[in-house]
């Protein structure tokens, strides 16, 4: 029998492509339903938990709806806010390297949810046009708000593989498998609770901290002439408009502890005045901790506390929120 192109299509190519599609589908399902839910503490897992299609925290009881506290921000949020000391219903969704370009979108996503509880939003005096690791968003990629974020020219990612459901996780199977098998909960000396994740060092090492002080001083010297990193007024306005459009949800705008050496770093005046502008809204409270009493041993570097610092700060924050004792 003469083998025609139809034979080739029917008996060779199409079955091969069908198996390829099946493999990609299995990869997608495996990552979405097995690997993501299992990897406690990673960004993608934390976001999927609240905003994913099968989010366990979506089906909330009335009490949970009213009292769940969502905490958004950058690495300073992730590392400084230890939720168990703030509230048993608080959940940390801070993402490393995520500036207002990403945090604003996550806030938008939170506003679109059924929750009515307060939101803690970490305010950084600097703003970067970044959203953190793009892999964090893959499990919630279909959400229109996330699509909007990834199309943002500032974000600048190659979306070709992520655009299609079947190829979304192509090349990432091992990455997710590693997250799953080497779950952070299982890692030694790492605290993973209510979205919080930070290594615990029994002995504070002065060396890396001093190195960060030296780097900070060099940075400050570079800006002695009064120059500073300009913040994006566009992103600030975006945040303002978003928050003012949702008066039904209380926002706590809080700055994470920074080492006193950073006080000498020149800061954009817009960054300094913005929290007060936002706090002008009735449903927004602005809190700035007094960290001048924090010893050096509370810091990992000049802009991030370690677990000891996080506990001290979170205890203060939890007490303040419980007492409702806010000082503007």
């Amino acid at each position, binding site marked *: 029998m003469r*083998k025609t192109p139809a034979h080739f299509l029917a008996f*060779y190519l199409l079955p*091969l492509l069908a198996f390829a599609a099946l*493999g990609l589908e299995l990869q997608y399902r495996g990552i979405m339903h097995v690997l993501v839910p299992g990897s406690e503490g990673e960004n993608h897992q934390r976001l999927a938990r609240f905003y994913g299609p099968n989010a366990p925290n979506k089906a909330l009881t009335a009490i949970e709806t009213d009292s769940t506290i969502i905490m958004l921000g950058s690495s300073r949020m992730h590392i400084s806010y230890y939720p168990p000391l703030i509230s048993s219903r608080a959940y940390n969704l801070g993402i490393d390297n995520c500036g207002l370009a990403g945090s604003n979108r996550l806030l938008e996503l939170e506003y679109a949810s059924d929750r009515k509880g307060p939101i803690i939003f970490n305010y950084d005096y600097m703003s970067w046009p970044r959203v953190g690791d793009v892999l964090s968003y893959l499990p919630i990629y279909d959400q229109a708000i996330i699509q909007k974020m990834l199309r943002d020219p500032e974000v600048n990612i190659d979306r070709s*593989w992520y655009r299609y459901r079947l*190829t979304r996780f192509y090349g990432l199977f091992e990455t997710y498998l590693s997250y799953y098998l080497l779950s952070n909960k299982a890692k030694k000396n790492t605290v993973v609770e209510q979205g919080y994740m930070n290594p615990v060092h029994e002995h504070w090492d002065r060396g890396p901290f001093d190195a960060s002080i030296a780097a900070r001083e060099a940075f400050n010297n570079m800006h002695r002439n009064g120059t500073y990193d300009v913040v994006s007024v566009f992103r600030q306005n975006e945040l303002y408009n978003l928050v003012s459009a949702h008066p039904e949800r209380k926002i706590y705008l809080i700055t994470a502890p920074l080492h006193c050496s950073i006080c000498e770093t020149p800061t954009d005046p817009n960054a300094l005045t913005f929290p007060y502008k936002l706090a002008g809204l009735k449903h927004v409270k602005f809190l700035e901790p007094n960290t001048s009493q924090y010893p050096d041993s509370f810091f990992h570097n000049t802009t991030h506390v370690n677990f000891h610092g996080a506990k001290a700060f979170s205890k203060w924050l939890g007490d303040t929120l419980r007492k409702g004792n806010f000082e503007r």
Partner: protein
Amino acid sequence: MLFNSVQFFVFLPVFLFCYFLSPHRFRWMVLLAASIYFYMSWRPEYILLIFFCAFLNYFSAILIQQSVDDRRRKLILTISVILNLSVIFVFKYLGFFTGIFNTASSAAGSSLNLPMVNLLLPVGISFFTFHTMSYTIDVYRKEIPLEKHVGYFILFVVFWPMLLAGPIERGAHLIPQFRKKYRWDFDRTVSGCQRIVFGLFKKAVIADRLAPMVQTTYSQPENFGSLATFTAAVFFSIQIFCDFSGYCDIALGCAQILDFDLFENFNKPYKAGSIREFWSRWHMSLSRWFRDYVYIPLGGNRHGRLMQYRNLLITFLVSGLWHGANFTYIVWGGLHGLFQIAGSETEPAKNRFYRFSGLSRFPGLINATGILLTFLLVTFAWIFFRAQNITQALQIIAHIFRFKLNMGFKEIMLGEGLIRFTITIGLLAILLLSAFIPKKISVLSSWLLSLFFLVLLIFFGINDGNSAFIYFQF
């Protein structure tokens, strides 16, 4: 357009659909349009450079053919070759030689500095200039007939499967195939598909997986011990083979589906028992090009052993420079030349030693030793090829030969996690076993093999957005 991109997997079926639906007399036009689009999807304006090279050689060949005077023919050929080399010089080597001139000028205490020109290197420039140049030289030598059809000639230059990184074709081999009527063949198409899948496996699963491990070690050799640095050097040997031969497999597989027969570029190169044999198995189309257009015109092996070695060394140094504008490539080429000369010189002594020691009774052992030694020498030379500069290469070599064997678990795994490293070793074992797959297999076996590699590609392929083929930079 990369062979391992989403765009290519959209381009390929659309192109095949249009190609097979069009009547034979229009097919070359579809192929030409697709090839131009293929190149322009990278940087549209650089297509003008290809057209310049194509027309330069097209008209040079016509003028050479029309001339009866030998001196005039030679003059036209010389001008054509100079212009071809000028194109490659301006885009590839101008910055390099300006840098050398400025350094020499500063060292001599002169204040004369030439302005540095940083032009973006057109992808595949070394390949398409060599294609076109070989055609003109062949017409001059009267080895091939003149191609008058301008469409076929441009197609010879821009034929998309081989446009970006070869194989380096010859007019006599490829141009007649554009006239040939396409005939459908089941086995050939199946074999083409299998080759594409296997090429993708080599590139996306093996080469792209090894790349970050090699990169980590080469960028911070001080953090790694001797064994880890040596492993990284071996991994680069595997990476570059899988990267380039993977590209060639995809290129040849696509050409096979289109009923085109391109030159093979690889024939199990790491099975070579000597450096001479290695070059008859590695990047074969380039080796042939240098043999025919550099080594033999220099005199080849016709004027005694000393002249032969000189010609060999020059050919390898030029070959090194062809790869890139950096001293590392020149050293890499020079090393291969020296290894080959040393191999020829020690051949009689080696044979005497084998006879004297009785080892000649164990040809398998001699063969295995030859393969291992050749692999180690090739790996040593690759260190220069991979390094950013000579200092880095020497640093890597120093780390290997320091024999610092104390190391941590993470260091052994070249900065990768346990899971990824273990999977990598397993995949390398599969790659090794794949060398034993016979060339002729049944359709069912071919289908099962393709399925197997496809599954590995899906679950273990790397997609980190940084997976251009190494040879695209040449």
